[in-house]
């Protein structure tokens, strides 16, 4: 089965380490970024299948970021947001911007891994 490439964007190094290590068995490569600029440039060079953003602020600060990441293609890469915020407005706002999944902390690593495995299946078909 083909495995996906993931970029995890977070300013917290510990979270990057934890999630990166947890997702390692079900993906081919994981890249860590800490700034929006880094994410954009890495996205252009490696063309990942999934971007996990662990904060709402990069997306709220620049609503065009999703378009910047996806370019003209419609749904690639997939964008997951994991955050502490439960506010309905933020969730709806981000989903309308075009993110694919909104998850809140605390998360189940197993559940996140199963979502990544589902992407692997999708890529293999």
């Amino acid at each position, binding site marked *: 089965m083909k495995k996906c490439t993931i970029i995890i964007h977070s300013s917290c190094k510990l979270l990057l380490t*934890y999630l990166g290590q947890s997702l390692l068995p079900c993906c081919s490569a994981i890249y860590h970024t800490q700034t929006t600029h880094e994410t954009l440039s890495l996205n252009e060079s490696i063309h990942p299948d999934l971007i996990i953003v662990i904060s709402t602020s990069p997306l709220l600060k620049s609503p065009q970021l999703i378009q910047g990441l996806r370019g003209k293609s419609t749904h690639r890469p997939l964008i997951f947001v994991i955050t502490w915020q*439960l506010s309905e*407005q933020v969730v709806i*706002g981000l989903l309308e911007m075009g993110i694919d999944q909104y998850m809140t*902390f*605390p*998360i189940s*690593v197993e559940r996140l891994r199963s979502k990544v495995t589902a992407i692997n299946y999708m890529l293999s078909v």
Partner: protein
Amino acid sequence: MNGIEIAYTLYIIVVILLSLIAIIYTRAESHKEFLTKVYTLQISEQLNLQNIQNISANNNHEREALLDALRHIIIHSYGIDHSILCKIIYINSLDKYIMKVLFSTWSSYRKARMLHLLSYLPHNYEVTKLKRFRHSNDADIRRGALLATLADNPSMAIANISKLKHELSAIDITHIISLLRRNLLPIACEPLLKSPNKNLCLLGMAIVSNFNITMAEQELHSILSHSRDQRIIREAIFTLCSIGSTLQSRPLRQQIIAGGAEFRKTLCRHLSVEGYSIDTIRQIIPGRDSLLAEKIILSHKRQLYTSSEVS
């Protein structure tokens, strides 16, 4: 050597000493950060493979880093194998280390930090020893002790909260809610809302707003009609806002008018954030007080959503 030269020499020595202390402190902190990262990596590797290898912390500095790594993992995830974490705690005697620091340190900050750490860790400690901290004058220590007690026995959480002699602050309630979310404890909010105990009533309302329990609207209106406590009334109004109630009842209107200008301003901000329209806010808060809502709704963040909807 005259007086000025001596003072100048002393000044130079003090500056050099302070710089050295700052360098040593920064290096220690960056080393701790590095250790925490290594421990996080090791623990998540063990959680993935479901096996227990030796993660050892040999001195207090390493133990602090290991505790930070454990806390970080426990805060951000659920459904992880606690037996592995317990084993790590047992091998490194982390619970004993926390208890030792707790009873030996003079620093309130460190005491509060250790108590908060206890509330995150799987429970191996003696809660009865924490009793004295629950009556501390320091709010952080009191909160830490309460959280550790609640985390030790979640089924007795409500009974323990009802016995409290002090009123829970907003931050206390936020911590308790995050503890409930972490332990996945289902709590019926209706008995809490009907409770004569102020702390339980406040906790009930926090549960309603955090878990968006729209079915509790009737109980909240009943609180508005019967309660005399200003804090409970205000929390009930905010909770009604957060569950998206229509806010049309007469007791509610009376409470808003009686609440004063400052309260109406806070409510205005709350209503805007919860997504009420300008027209609805004008109906709820008549007069000039509702002008603030217009400003907030038309602020940068609101425009951001609108522009994303248009695009």
